[in-house]
């Protein structure tokens, strides 16, 4: 039971974590990306098609990341070069891409909603011999796919990138003080574009994880608003990779948990409220402790 919850929680966390880390980098670079969901959706679709055509999951990842990156670039250009409001552009991308995906399915495949293709290459599972059968540890470490591993490796990598790498430092500068960055001869707008392209690529991977990692089909509702949950995760983490990962894990865990809570006397809808309520509770507690610690510093 515990093992299964852990395993399911990790599975449900992966897409959130991928998109949240992308969104985090984007926000550090100065753009709040509301359009993550659209990039996930496109990644899920393109990834599935590539996985079916090529039979190669790595090609599918590349395809999904590429389409996400392309959408990210378009969105970023609208924000940085056309000076459009990032929130509206993000909402606009969500609406327009959802429409385009349906439009594309109808025009190209004569189907709507779901795309079920033959010979879809799925993500392989990495079973670690010896560890696999150890309780808890096995569920934590074994039987996950490469993308899940990549997502978790990205957490310290992102932290390291932002603190220690030249590009990370410049990105922080571009986000926090674009004028200053410009005066130093950096190109804050280009950096911003790069961060949105990255967010798009990560969201594309998050999407393809859902389509070829989890189920092997595409459905127009496959993201189920996970782009917004990812947004909540990096807001929750206040742009720090580890707390953001914790936020994503919290959502993933509750997703896995609520599935198993159902049928135990609690109405399904109320169980589904839990993760969202938890975020509010945690933020409130954090707010109160921060206020306390300030007050303690005083006395």
């Amino acid at each position, binding site marked *: 039971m515990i093992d299964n919850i852990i395993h399911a929680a990790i599975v449900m966390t992966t897409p959130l974590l991928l998109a949240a880390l992308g969104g985090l980098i984007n926000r550090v670079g100065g753009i*709040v990306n509301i359009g993550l969901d659209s990039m996930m959706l496109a990644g899920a679709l393109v990834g599935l098609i590539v996985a079916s055509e090529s039979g190669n999951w790595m090609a599918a990842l590349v395809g999904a990341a590429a389409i996400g990156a392309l959408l990210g670039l378009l969105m970023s250009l*609208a924000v940085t*070069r*056309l*000076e*459009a*409001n990032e*929130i*509206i*552009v993000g*909402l*606009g*991308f*969500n*609406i*327009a*891409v*959802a*429409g*385009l995906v*349906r*439009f594309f399915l*109808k*025009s190209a495949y004569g189907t709507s909603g779901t795309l079920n293709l033959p010979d879809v290459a799925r993500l392989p599972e990495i079973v670690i011999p010896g560890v696999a059968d150890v309780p808890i540890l096995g569920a934590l470490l074994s039987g996950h796919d490469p993308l899940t591993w990549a997502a978790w490796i990205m957490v310290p990598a992102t932290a390291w990138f932002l603190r220690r790498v030249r590009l990370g430092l410049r990105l922080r500068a571009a986000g926090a003080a674009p004028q200053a960055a410009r005066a130093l001869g950096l190109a804050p707008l280009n950096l911003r574009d790069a961060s949105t392209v990255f967010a798009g690529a990560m969201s594309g991977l998050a999407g393809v994880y859902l389509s070829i990692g989890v189920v092997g089909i595409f459905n127009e509702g496959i993201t189920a608003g996970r782009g*917004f949950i990812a*947004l*909540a995760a990096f*807001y*929750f983490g206040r742009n720090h990779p580890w707390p953001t990962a914790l936020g994503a894990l919290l959502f993933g865990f509750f997703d896995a948990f609520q599935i198993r809570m159902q049928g135990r006397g609690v*109405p399904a*809808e*109320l169980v*589904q*409220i839990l993760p*969202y*309520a938890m*975020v*509010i509770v945690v*933020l*409130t507690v*954090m*707010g*109160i402790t*921060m*206020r306390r610690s300030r007050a303690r510093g005083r006395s």
Partner: protein
Amino acid sequence: MARSLAGALLPLLIAVLVAAVILALAGHNPFDVYRLLAIESFGGVKRVAATLAAATPLILTGLATAVAFRAGAFNVGVEGCVFVGGLAAAYVGFTFVGLPAAVLVPFALAASVVIGALWMLLPGVLKARLDVDEVVTTLMLNFIAISLTAYLVNGPLLAPGSANSATPMVDAAARLPKLMPPSTLNAGFLIAIALLVLYWLWDRSTASGFETRIAGLNARFAIASGIDVPMLIIKMMLLSGAIGGIAGGIHALGTVGRFVSGFSPGYGFTGIAVALLGRGSAVGILLAAILFGALATSGATIQLFSDVPIEIVNVLQGMVMIFAVARFGWIFARRRRAA
């Protein structure tokens, strides 16, 4: 003058062009589609009425969002207020059967206002007192509102004999009067316009509107000027919630006649776009709401006359949002500098 008009129309033009390319690629004649869209949204009194009816909830959610933005609170939780407000109004409307319309309608709307405002109390207080980010809390509250109302409408408030999650129909006395029968355009539209006018007056000529604007533009300055900004944020979040609630109430009493699953197709989120597109001004909100209302109505009915998939409306809507907030000035500016 000519320039500003061009500035307003250019984005629409670009959106229309992009969508036209997509249409043409898919083998549709863009001109026919656009002609149909225009006819179906503004061609005749009935169609205009349908457009205005569709615009009504968007005016209100746009206004609700704008009110919070004014005070510097990025409230994305109006969608949740529409849900709880709609359910509250419907509950009053089908429970207190027998009251005269003059009592029942205000009672039901008041319920939606109170619930909507209360729904925004927590994020308002958390932002004002503990500096908790309102974007996250209000976004979370949307999901909570949707699940909570779904629970209520499937269980305690489910209409007997209904195969769908729906409350019973509200009493006839609770329905808002229609303005142009048989169109669904109803008194809710007048309420929305009245609130818009009040907003315009409030923003323009009241001390509180002034304080709110200043607080939204520069909170430190407002505080130094002696304005209680945290309290103001709480008040404006409550007001935003109240307007979001009444959007739901009006939708329940005026259009749908009950609370039912699929009650709001995202009015709250479209409202964010309406508020931002309308630049927070009363007239801007009205025009933006009518634009989105027109796309919603005509998008559905053009399918009766053309094979064009409804998705083209989503594409158009998305493109309009993206380009309407874009500034094209830099293109001209750069040309000048280069010269």
